[in-house]
């Protein structure tokens, strides 16, 4: 699972900063069949969480209504320098994670 994370490298304490996440995933709805008519089981990234220095600051629970290769964007308040960690898991149990460093001034 390829993923891209965009976190501003520098921020000032108290700033609202935008975090962007894009993950390559088919987000199989469970409503489709293959060429032989066999149902393709549902397989979507059902949970994605973002932790900021160990504290969860954002969580998304997704279902079959989310398009393939989901793209999420959200805002957090810059507190202190450290690390943002992203973890997600799909219905088949395949998990992925990414991390990004952030430098907060002030």
């Amino acid at each position, binding site marked *: 699972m*390829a*993923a*891209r994370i965009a976190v501003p490298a520098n921020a000032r304490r108290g700033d609202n900063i935008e975090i962007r996440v*894009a993950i*390559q995933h*088919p*987000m199989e709805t469970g409503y489709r069949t293959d060429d032989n008519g066999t149902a393709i089981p549902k397989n979507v990234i059902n949970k994605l969480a973002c932790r900021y220095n160990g504290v969860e600051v954002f969580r998304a629970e997704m279902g079959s209504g989310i398009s*393939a*290769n989901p793209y999420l964007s959200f805002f957090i308040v810059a507190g202190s320098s450290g690390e943002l960690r992203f973890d997600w898991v799909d219905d088949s149990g395949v998990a992925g994670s990414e991390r990004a460093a952030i430098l907060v001034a002030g």
Partner: protein
Amino acid sequence: MSLRRLSLGLFAALVAGTAVAQTAVRPAPLKSGIEFTGAEVRALQNDEFANPAMLWVLRGTALWTQPAGKDNRSCASCHGDATTGMKSVATHYPQIDKSSGSLINLEGRIQQCRERRQNASPLKYESEELLGLTAFVRMQSRGMPLAISIDGPARAYFERGRDFYYKRVGQMNLACAHCHQDNWGKKLGPEIISQGHGNPYPGYRLEWQTMGSLHRRFRSCLSGVRAEMLPQGAPEYLDLELYLAWRSGNLPVETPGVRR
């Protein structure tokens, strides 16, 4: 002249009429498909981060430096940094391959490199790897117009491609030209018919919910007119790719593009 001779003559004229080669023409003014997609898709393509095709480019970027095959060589071992070494390279494809004398596209060249220089197994035409590598290489020519040759040995391929473009096919009995040359800008169901340029490919289609090659796009069109779909990489598709490259004139490469 008897009636019989006259009708024979008419018949001969009709047959001759259909056999006359179509003249290759470009639509005027030339418009990239992105102008027909609507503001949201345009925004998606232009946003370097949100553009979903960039996930495949990311894959291609990694593959560029990853050693493969028996010789344990990567693309970068020979070509170096792609941002300089591959700049504008894709604008010259499809081209005549010097070693075989036949037409080859960018996908074909990557496959040839894998086989001859890396001693690696070929990639499947529509595989994530080949899509990623092709998109990564072609992206180094983003914004540049294609500069292909249709002279010399390429002429015959070009003419075959042009004939394919104007040939009626399938149950709907339509040629490429009926939609993309004669009726672009008009509605087909809810969609506006584009001029059918290949400049965004490999690209992300929202309909597919994934990345696809230009040849996959050809298959989609042929399926739409209920004609026989040829496998990706078929010689007919290479001819058509060359014709379309010529037909796109000075339109810039948009890979990795986004389309509806």
